[in-house]
């Protein structure tokens, strides 16, 4: 894998095909755990692990897996890996495991994982598939962290609450002071939808501007190469 395709994979995962902003996949965990940065980023990193290893496993086996039974095989691989991650969290990051609870096993049902295995790892070599898994996962981590940060800020007036579970000794940042009454809807489930909608709108504005600038630079007759993806 050369530098060019590595850059391509990174750009795809982090921005152009961002799982949350563009593909709108895996919204269930996105909305459920994004009540704070720490929760959101931890689950995101667990997803990165599962995506990297499942992409690697599927890409290595891709020539042996018949098309007809690929889905059961993929799910079997993803489920086994998720269970291993779940056990590992329980054993070595016990406090975090107690916080994330049901959402680690639910990584199996996250359609991002299956989507990348099916759309990318089943057709590409192991190395670039692993990079794709990591980059797609990191795109999710970034989105989850921003979403978690905004919701936490609106709802509680803090940032990084719960950081002491990951790094004992660190403490959360109280942005608006202890008297902040809390804009509750930020933490409640509707807040997740509103915040995500605002982020998607913002990203679409940026994408539209970038596409316009690009087509203007290429001259009026050139087709816009990088259309913003619709939220379909």
């Amino acid at each position, binding site marked *: 894998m050369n530098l060019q395709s590595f850059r391509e994979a990174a750009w795809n995962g982090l921005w152009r095909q961002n799982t949350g902003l563009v593909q709108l996949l895996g919204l269930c965990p996105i909305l459920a755990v994004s009540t704070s940065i720490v929760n959101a980023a931890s689950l995101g990193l667990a997803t990165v692990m599962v995506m990297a290893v499942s992409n690697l496993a599927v890409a290595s086996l891709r*020539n*042996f897996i*018949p*098309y007809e*039974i690929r889905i059961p095989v993929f799910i079997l691989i993803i489920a086994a890996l998720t269970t291993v991650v779940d056990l*590992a969290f329980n054993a070595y990051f016990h406090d975090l495991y107690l916080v994330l609870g049901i959402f680690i096993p639910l990584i199996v049902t996250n359609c991002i994982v299956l989507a990348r295995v099916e759309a990318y790892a089943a057709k590409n070599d192991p190395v670039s598939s692993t990079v794709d898994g990591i980059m797609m996962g990191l795109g999710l981590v970034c989105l989850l962290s921003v979403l978690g940060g905004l919701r936490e800020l609106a709802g509680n007036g803090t940032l990084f609450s719960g950081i002491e579970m990951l790094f004992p000794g660190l403490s959360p940042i109280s942005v608006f002071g202890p008297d902040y009454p809390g804009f509750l809807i930020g*933490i409640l489930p509707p807040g997740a939808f509103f915040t995500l909608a605002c982020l998607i709108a913002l990203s679409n504005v940026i994408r539209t501007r970038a596409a316009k600038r690009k087509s203007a630079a290429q001259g009026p007759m050139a087709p816009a190469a990088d259309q913003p993806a619709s939220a379909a």
Partner: protein
Amino acid sequence: MGTDQSVGFSLDALRDRLAYQPLLLGGVALVAGTALTLASNATRAPIAAAEAHDTQMTLAQVLPPGSADNDLLADVLELPGPAAGSTRRIHIARKAGVVTGAVFNVAERGYSGEIRLLMAVDPAGRVLGVRVLKHTETPGLGDKIEIARNPWITSFDGKSLGEPAPAKWAVKKDGGIYDSFAGATITPRAVVKAVKGGLDYFAAHRNEILGVQP
């Protein structure tokens, strides 16, 4: 599983080998199962240790420091629970052989599901400490019952069935002495009810728990 690269994507080759698919699926399942068994074996001891450590830490939180010198995890009494047919595990804290407290779980339905608490009671029936073990209350509202978010749960320390009077075992909104949180009354109400239920239970089983003859 062979080195024939055409096997993967050629449908014709696959139809000739009907057994290939079930065997492959079985093989993958076998590998996955083996991996899980290995992972489960490798993590069993750390998980058990982490859980024991967890229980130990929570037990230590509800008991005042230095009030017990026995192994609380092993010193367990099984008594009939509040519901018919259930049992309740009671950890007995002893210092120099004398009972200094009883630690047990209580549960009550909160705003959105069961709230599980761990509470310690001293031999005189006073609350030594209460901590929330598990809850699914609204984040930002009901979760103030967690000690990490709000010291509210310590307002039970030292309380007993006689102090305050039974009618005062309620949140302030209901004429009691306990604060409730802005926007969340049901959660503290449930916790108050659960703690009072625990004290009632202790009063009813006091002799068995303390090991004295009536």
